[in-house]
């Protein structure tokens, strides 16, 4: 069965510092992978998606993610974090049943 693991429940970084959020997936076929961001009391917004091709994908708000098949990972990165990036981040994998399996999320706190 497919699964998504986000090992870090909570991460704190200083404003202007780089960020990497980890995501590991388990899926038998070639995965379709996504990252979402959720601000408090809001729905989830799609940051980026990976289907195939270039393993480094660019998203909105200056985020990027790298697919590494050998490590079953799809880590999210940003070179310089802004205070407005503080939010909950979810990694997800699309299954062949048409549904998505989500990780439990990582809460990002940004220190001034």
């Amino acid at each position, binding site marked *: 069965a497919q699964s998504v693991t986000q090992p870090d429940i909570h991460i704190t970084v200083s404003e202007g510092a780089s960020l990497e959020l980890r995501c590991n997936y388990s899926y038998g076929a070639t995965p379709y992978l996504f990252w979402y961001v959720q601000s408090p009391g809001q729905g989830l917004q799609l940051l980026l998606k990976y289907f195939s091709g270039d393993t480094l994908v660019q998203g909105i708000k200056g985020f990027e993610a790298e697919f590494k098949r050998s490590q079953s990972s799809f880590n999210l990165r940003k070179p310089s974090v802004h205070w407005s990036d503080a939010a909950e981040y979810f990694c*997800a994998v699309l299954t062949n049943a048409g549904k998505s399996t989500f*990780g439990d999320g990582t809460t990002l706190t940004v220190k001034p």
Partner: protein
Amino acid sequence: SQTIHQWPATLVQPVGSPLSLECTVEGTSNPNLYWYRQAAGRGLQLLFYSVGIGQISSEVPQNLSASRPQDRQFILSSKKLLLSDSGFYLCAWSVPNQPQHFGDGTRLSIL
């Protein structure tokens, strides 16, 4: 472009009262539709999904039900709310092999 509307944004209901949350999608046809619940500080729990009118799959046994009376309308209901039904409810839509797109959510508090 496609949009998703979910209402109400906030709801406070007494235990034992009925519930109806509505979600509509515009700008696409025959979308897959989903209802999720998110407990405080927790991940997403898929409650129901639908691939067409009248086709509802339930992921977990519970006090809730879902209906899809029209192609782009998805309703979450309960006849009698329990305290444990409190949470943040999210509706989402997708087309095959594409990511889901979420509404703004409904905060449901049961007193």
